[in-house]
């Protein structure tokens, strides 16, 4: 019950020598994940699905969520359900008509501060000057989680 970093054991675990890693290790940026369809689930076949997921941010309330159903080539505005509260999970959804072809589902969100959920490549570009999809981001990882939908309707972690 404190009003600042208290330097008990919980803070000790976040200490870093490098100020960038210290800052990014303390507060989570805007993050979202599609919970349905998601890895391990199975689509019955081509047709209508509601893509649904959760978004949140250490910066405050979620102001916008976008969903891509074509592996990040195009992005659609998802509907935020209910009121987006600060520091709270926010449910979003998007209607999707699956044509039966293999694809990837992704979500990215924006918070009230204007911070946008990145791909690992974007973070690599920021820090290293060159994109790298396998980049291990410093601090808490708020990068986009892609789900691969196979032609048989099975859903897998596209990063695995």
């Amino acid at each position, binding site marked *: *019950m*404190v*009003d*600042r*970093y*208290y*330097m*008990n*054991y919980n*803070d*000790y675990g*976040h*200490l*870093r*020598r*490098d*100020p*960038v*890693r*210290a*800052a*990014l290790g*303390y*507060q*989570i*940026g*805007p993050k979202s994940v599609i919970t349905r369809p998601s890895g391990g689930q199975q689509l019955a076949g081509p047709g209508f699905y509601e893509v649904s997921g959760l978004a949140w941010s*250490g*910066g*405050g309330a979620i102001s916008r969520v976008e969903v891509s159903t074509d592996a990040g080539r195009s992005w659609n505005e998802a509907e935020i359900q209910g009121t987006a509260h600060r520091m709270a999970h926010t449910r979003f959804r998007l209607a999707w008509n699956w044509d039966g072809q293999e694809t990837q589902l992704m979500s990215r969100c924006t918070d*009230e*501060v*204007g*911070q*946008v*959920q*990145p791909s690992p490549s*974007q*973070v690599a570009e*920021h820090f290293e000057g060159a994109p790298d999809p396998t980049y291990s981001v410093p601090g808490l990882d*708020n990068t986009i989680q892609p789900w691969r939908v196979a032609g048989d309707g099975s859903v897998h972690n596209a990063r695995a």
Partner: protein
Amino acid sequence: MRVLSRPWWTVGAPLALVMLLGVSALAQGPTYGLGRTPTPEELRAWDISVGPTGEELPPGSGIAAEGARIYRIRCAGCHGRNLEGGRAPRRAPRLVKTEPGRDVDPWDAGRILPYRSPYATTVWDYINRGMPLYQEGTLTADQVYALTAFLLFRNDVIAEDMVLDAESLPQIEMPNRDGWAPLPDWKPGSPRLPGYPF
């Protein structure tokens, strides 16, 4: 500054202002008809953090020799007889820097709490709140002071005969006292890192 450890009007005008703003923000938020106000007893049970000033430390004292004896009985089973850390399946962390007797950079010595921690009070706080695993709360304050003294002595931080108590513990100068990056001064609406768009 612990809000609960003393009356709020004694902790200074800036904090009082922050608290008033916080209260008014809460008052504007929606309520959901859930939960209840914690009782003073419940708050006291949760309110166990010991910060760098050591103001929350209880009475008691201990020295390294006594800590060594307690360590053998209560800690060595998981952390190893020579503080080398446990093997699978009980992978308790190593508790002594890799090259005792030498000045090792705390960031190169492994994640050794009684060596890397910037404050000795954190070592006391962690043992007191978290050890022994699954038997937390069974060590007396004297025993926690003694174990802290033993671990700090074995990491060349204090002399073998130093008596640790609420007075002396916060005054220990840890080797990593200034070796870590300052934490950002966040306010609501600040980005997590200036110039970083994500």
